C-alpha cells in the first residue's frame, strides 16, 4: 500500500478519489503549461542545483533539528525534537515553496506574480522571492486577516508588493483564494499564481508538496545523526497542510513513524465553530480540488473559526484527505484555548515564540506524550515563528501597547 501512496497523484492529479482539476476552462491551458514545465525541470540538474543553492544561501537551510530539553522534562516521557522551520528566512516553512515556484515562473517567462495569504507568511514569502527577481507582485488577503496580521501586511508592502484587501464572503483566506483565482483568470497570459499550500487544482498540491519535502528529507538525515533512529511520531499543524505534507511525505513508506496532523478546533469541534474539515467535514469541491470540506446542509461552504489566521480555512489539501482515508496519517484537532496555552508554554519553556498555527501542534503533545515511553523520539514541525501573532495574543490577554 505504502509504495503506491508514494506515487500519487496519478496523471489526472488524483490521490485516490481526492484532488483533480476543477477549474474554469480558461485556466486549463495555464495548468497544462505549468505541469509540463514542472515535469521537465524537476529532475533537471541545473534546476535542482539552483533550488538547493537558494535554499542554502538565501533561506539558510538546513533548518536545525533541536532537542527541546525542558519540554521533554515537562512531559517526562519521550524526547521532544523541534524541526526549526521558524528559523528560515522570512520566519516560516512557506519560503521553501516560493523559492521553487518563482524559479518555475522565471523559466516560463511570467512577468507578474500573484498569491493569496492567510496569516501573511505566504504573502511575505512570495513578495520576498518576487523582489529578488524584480517581478511585479500582488498579494490577496482577506480583510479580516489584514486586520489581525497587520505586521505582515506592512512587511509585504516593504518588499514592494501590493496588498489587495478582500471584503467578500468571510473576508479570510478562502475569499483571498477566490480573488486570486479571479485575477489569474483575467491575467492568465502574463501571470504566475504561486499557491501557498498543498491545495488548489493539480499540479499545485504535488508541486507545493515536492518543494516543501526538503523538510522531511532533512529530518531523515538529522534523525539518524542525532538519535540514530527514525522518529516515532511527527506532529504538524494542518490548515491547507503544506508544512505537514512537506515533513510527512518522505516518511510515508516508513510505517513505524506515526504521522499526526493537528487541525484548528476553534471553539471546539462539538460547537461547529472551527476549521477542522478532516475531523468534521465531508468531501466536496472548493478551489479546484475535491477534498474534505466544511459545508452546511445545503452544500454551501461554511465560514470557519480559528484564532490562527493561517489555519482559518474550510478546505484541506487533497493528499491529506487521502492519507486520512488510507489510515496512514492521523488527524486530530486542538481548540483555540489549548493552542493559546501552548503558545505561552513553549515560549516560556524553550525560549521559542511559535506561530499560533504551530502552537496547535505543540498543544497536542499534552495528549500524545502520554502514549510514549522515555525511549521514543517525537518531532514537532515548528512551521513558523510567532512574531506576527503578538498583537492577536496581546489583545486576547487584555494588553494594549
Amino acid at each position, binding site marked *: 500500500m505504502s509504495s503506491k501512496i508514494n506515487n500519487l497523484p496519478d496523471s489526472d492529479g488524483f490521490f485516490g478519489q481526492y484532488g483533480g482539476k476543477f477549474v*474554469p476552462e480558461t*485556466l486549463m491551458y495555464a495548468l497544462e503549461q505549468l505541469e509540463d514545465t514542472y515535469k521537465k525541470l524537476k529532475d533537471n540538474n541545473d534546476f535542482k542545483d539552483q533550488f538547493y543553492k537558494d535554499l542554502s544561501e538565501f533561506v539558510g537551510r538546513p533548518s536545525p533539528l533541536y532537542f527541546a530539553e525542558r519540554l521533554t522534562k515537562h512531559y517526562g516521557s519521550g524526547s521532544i525534537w523541534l524541526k526549526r522551520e521558524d528559523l528560515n528566512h522570512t520566519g516560516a516553512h512557506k519560503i521553501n515553496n516560493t523559492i521553487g515556484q518563482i524559479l518555475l515562473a522565471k523559466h516560463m517567462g511570467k512577468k507578474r506574480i500573484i498569491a493569496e495569504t492567510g496569516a501573511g507568511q505566504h504573502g511575505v514569502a512570495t513578495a520576498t522571492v518576487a523582489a529578488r527577481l524584480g517581478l511585479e507582485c500582488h498579494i490577496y488577503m482577506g480583510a479580516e486577516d489584514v486586520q489581525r496580521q497587520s505586521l505582515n501586511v506592512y512587511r509585504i508592502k516593504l518588499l514592494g508588493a501590493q496588498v489587495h484587501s478582500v471584503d467578500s464572503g468571510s473576508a479570510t483566506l478562502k475569499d483571498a483564494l477566490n480573488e486570486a483565482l479571479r485575477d489569474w483568470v483575467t491575467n492568465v497570459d502574463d501571470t504566475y499564481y504561486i499557491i501557498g499550500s498543498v491545495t488548489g487544482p493539480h499540479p499545485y498540491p504535488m508541486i507545493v508538496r515536492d518543494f516543501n519535502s526538503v523538510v522531511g528529507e532533512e529530518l531523515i538525515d538529522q534523525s539518524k545523526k542525532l538519535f540514530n533512529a527514525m522518529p516515532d511520531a511527527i506532529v504538524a499543524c494542518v490548515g491547507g497542510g503544506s508544512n505537514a505534507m512537506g515533513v510527512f511525505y518522505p516518511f510515508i513508506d516508513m510505517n513505524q513513524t506515526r504521522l499526526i496532523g493537528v487541525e484548528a478546533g476553534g471553539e471546539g469541534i462539538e460547537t461547529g465553530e472551527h476549521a477542522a474539515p478532516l475531523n468534521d467535514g465531508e468531501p466536496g469541491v472548493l478551489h479546484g480540488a475535491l477534498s474534505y470540506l466544511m459545508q452546511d446542509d*445545503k452544500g454551501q461552504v461554511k465560514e470557519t473559526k480559528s484564532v490562527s489566521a493561517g489555519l482559518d480555512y474550510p478546505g484541506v489539501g487533497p493528499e491529506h484527505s487521502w492519507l486520512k482515508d488510507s489510515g496512514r496519517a492521523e488527524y486530530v484537532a486542538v481548540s483555540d484555548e489549548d493552542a493559546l496555552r501552548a503558545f505561552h508554554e513553549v515560549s516560556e519553556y524553550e525560549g521559542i515564540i511559535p506561530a499560533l498555527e504551530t502552537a496547535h501542534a505543540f498543544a497536542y503533545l499534552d495528549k500524545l506524550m502520554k502514549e510514549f515511553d522515555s525511549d521514543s523520539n517525537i518531532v514537532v514541525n515548528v512551521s513558523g515563528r510567532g512574531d506576527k501573532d503578538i498583537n492577536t495574543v496581546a489583545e486576547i490577554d487584555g494588553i494594549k501597547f
Partner: protein
Amino acid sequence: MNRLTDKLEELKKRNQKALVAYLVAGDPDIDSTLEIMHMFVKSGVDIIEVGVPFTDPIAEGPIIQRAHDRAINKQISLEDVFELIKKFRSQDEETPIVLMGYLNSFIFYKDLIEKNQNNSVDSILVVDIPGELDIADYGIKNENINTISLISPTTKNDRIKLIANNSTGFIYYVTLRGVTGSSNLDVDEIKKNIREIKKYAKVPTLAGFGIKSPDDAKALSSCADGVIIGSSIVKMIEESSSTKEFDKIGSYIADIKNAIT
C-alpha cells in the same frame, strides 16, 4: 427530446440567433426570480440560464458575486431552485432552462438532478470543470439533461476538438480572459476563435461573458449562433431589488433581441 436541443434546431431552421438570459435564483427573492423569468420570455428570450447560488463563485465578477450573496442570505439551495423551476413550468412548458453553477452544489444534490422531476431542467453548465467533462464524469447520471461546455480564448486547438466532440447542448464561448461582466471585448479575436470552433462543433456555438450593449450583441451575432447576457441583467435586478420594479429589464432585452434579429 430535449427543449434546448429542439429550440436551437428551430432557431437554426429559421436562420435566427438565440438570446440567452441569465439570473441568479433567489436574487433578490424567489418570487421575483419567477416573475423575471416569465418577463424574459415575453421580451424575447429564447433560453433561460438560472444561476445556482454558491458561496465561492470563482468565475464571477463583483456584480454576479453580489447576486449569489443575496440569494445565499435567503438560504436558497439547489432544492429551492428545482421548486422554482417547477412553478415556472406550471405556466411555461416550452422555454428551455439551463442550470449554471459550481460542481459542489451539483454533487451535493446529485439525487435531485438524477430525478429531475418531469424533466423540468434541460441542461447543466458546470463552471468549474474542464470543458471536455460533464456531470456524468462525476457520477451524476441523467440522459435527458445535456451538457454545455465552455471554450475560452486560451483553449488550444487540441482541446477545442475534444470539447466540441463532447458537447451536447451548445458550446459556450467565453469571449474574454476574465470573470463575468468584464469589459474589453476583442471582437476580431472572438470571430476568429468561433470560426475555429465551428469547424469541429456538432452543436451551436453561443457567446457570453462581457456582452453589455445591443452593439456588442450585434457584433457577436454575426459569427456566433447566439449571445448570452448575464451581468447587465443582474445589475438591473440589483438596482431594482428594493422597489421590485423590473420593467426596464424587459425593454433592455427587447433592444438586444432587435439588435441580433
